[in-house]
């Protein structure tokens, strides 16, 4: 695949997110001498790891021209299952984690089956499962936060040191998952099929690629990723939180769009989504260091989202 750069040509607007992130970092570095410390940058990675992993799943789905509104709630349910199984049922931590991931994967499977077999629009399917996952989470947890978790469940929130900088294991896991997703999308047949389905599902089916299986696989893979995000969320907050995941669906979609992936499917780079979550995380961190209300972060995010979609739309027009 030495020549793959020809088939995966980076469009000009893909540089936008990187420039936005770089610009934000330079600006905050001039405003606060605490911003560019290893400790602070590591902190930002740690803060975005949950949405970051959810955004990988969301990217896969958006590449197929779909969307997943249920991701945050499914993530919250996974976290509650893990923490309840480990504390109240007393299951060994790895088993509890697997059960949590199994539940989120099941939700991915259900989403995928409804989209592929009954041909329901992903927006509607995941709107439904969003509510179902929320209700099950609240019922199963009695709306109570689950505390006193065993150390194994929160292990990914602990840190190791590079020099004087403490780095969370969960942040490393997020980066590894991004590299993995990037590799799969770029270098494997499955990855190419995902792009093809997003570009033109009917043409893809006609050339003999099992479109439905690709789609189903994407939703299931996203479910697995949400399960990993559940574990990261539990590790980060140190509790099983039934109110987690309330805004993660929109946060993840925002990150994907900021990263330059097209909402119309077929175009985008998964590493862009990492840049997207980092842009939001950097603004939140930087504005706090400056002592400015985080409402400005919301303002900036809104402007950037519009710019990103505009760039996508203009480049599509140009391509015609």
């Amino acid at each position, binding site marked *: 695949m030495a020549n793959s750069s020809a088939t995966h040509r980076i469009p000009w607007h893909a540089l936008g997110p990187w420039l936005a992130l770089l610009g934000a970092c330079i600006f905050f570095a001039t*405003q*606060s001498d*605490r911003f560019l410390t290893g*400790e*602070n940058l590591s*902190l930002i990675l*740690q*803060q975005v790891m*949950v949405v970051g992993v959810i955004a990988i799943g969301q990217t896969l789905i958006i590449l197929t021209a779909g969307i997943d509104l249920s991701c945050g709630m499914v993530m919250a349910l996974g976290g509650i299952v893990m923490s309840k199984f480990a504390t109240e049922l007393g299951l060994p931590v790895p088993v509890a984690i697997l059960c949590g991931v199994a539940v989120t994967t099941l939700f991915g499977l259900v989403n995928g089956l409804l989209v592929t077999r009954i041909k329901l629009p992903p927006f509607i399917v995941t709107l439904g499962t969003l509510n179902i996952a929320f209700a099950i989470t609240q019922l199963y947890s*009695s*709306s*109570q*936060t689950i*505390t006193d978790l065993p150390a194994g469940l*929160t292990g990914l929130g602990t840190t190791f040191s590079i020099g004087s900088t403490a780095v969370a294991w969960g942040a490393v896991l997020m980066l590894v998952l991004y590299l993995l997703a990037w590799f799969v999308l770029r270098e494997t047949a499955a990855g190419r099929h995902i792009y093809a389905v997003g570009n033109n599902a009917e043409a893809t089916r006609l050339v003999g690629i099992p479109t439905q299986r690709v789609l189903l696989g994407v939703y299931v893979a996203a479910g697995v990723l949400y399960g990993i995000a559940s574990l990261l*969320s539990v590790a*980060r*907050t*140190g*509790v099983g*939180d039934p*109110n*987690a995941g*309330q*805004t993660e669906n929109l946060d993840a979609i925002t990150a994907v769009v900021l990263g330059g992936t097209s909402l119309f499917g077929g175009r985008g780079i998964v590493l862009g989504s990492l840049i997207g979550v980092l842009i939001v995380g950097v603004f*939140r*961190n930087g504005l*706090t*260091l*400056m*002592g*400015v*209300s*985080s*409402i*400005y972060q919301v*303002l900036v995010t809104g402007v950037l989202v519009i710019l990103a979609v505009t760039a996508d739309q203009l480049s599509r027009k140009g391509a015609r």
Partner: protein
Amino acid sequence: MLSSRSILAMAAASLIAVSTTAALAADQPVIGLVTKTETNPFFVKMKEGAQEEAKKLGAKLLSGAGKADGDNAGQITAMENMIAAGAKTILITPSDAKAIVPAIKKARDRGVMVIALDSPADPPDATDALFATNNYTAGVLIGEYAKAAMAGKPAKIVALDLLPGHPVGAQRHNGFMKGFGLPANDAKSNELSKAPEIVCMADSYGDQAKAQTAMENCLQRAPEVNLVYTINEPAAAGAYNALKRAGKEKGVLIVSVDGGCQGIKDTNAGIIAATSQQYPLKMAAMGVAAGVEFAKTGKKASGYVDTGVTLIAGKSVPGVESKDTKTGAELCWGKK
């Protein structure tokens, strides 16, 4: 309407203003305030109080919040960023009393003083100190008022509560029942007490629209209601709307908690009979003062400090001490 250009100009100007003041005063004590949201008037007022006190005492105030009520991860992120910015004191109104505890512990292990404002962490000793209204007392006051105002009439009560499992909601509800002379759980319980006099109980989430819907449904179930307990004044306004549409506003007494300026106006207009007023400005000012004290002397605040609560009534009733709405309006929070 502001043009987008003027908004950008304002944003740029405020960014520059804040960054220059930050550069000027590097040795100022830095104090962080983490509220539940940045938009609820109660917390907006709390932030104003903190900012004023910080200016007076020469401290720098950082503020942050979750994205919505219940957003624990957002509060943790705000705390971490403030500690990264050099805050040695964090004032926090916990969105989830239990879920925030591990993050508070991490901060305290790094030598940061953490003070809960408005409502406690669970367990309460997870923070160095708590500056808050006694919500149970707030409930007792309006319960006693309602009992006297009903003058022996048998009560048919609708309770519009906060949300499941929230300690503030339980304390006000149980306090109200205690004040009314009904069997009630004690101040530490997170369970809502029930009694035959309560003909309908519903969660309002402290939101006017949700409270109106809840009250409409309760009126279907129990049209004979003559007393409504509400968790806060927006819920009271929602309940009043529902009663008015059903043509029942005259015969029903509404009592509430909060003491916001709109709530006091509603009390003056007779929509709310009485409300227990709390003081977010005072909580915030005391928190900032404690932070400055800690920065100067290293002495930490500790334990529970009651920031006071006053019964404000439209009409006073015999045997229950209350202040009039004029006094309430002087001390209210929100838009006057």
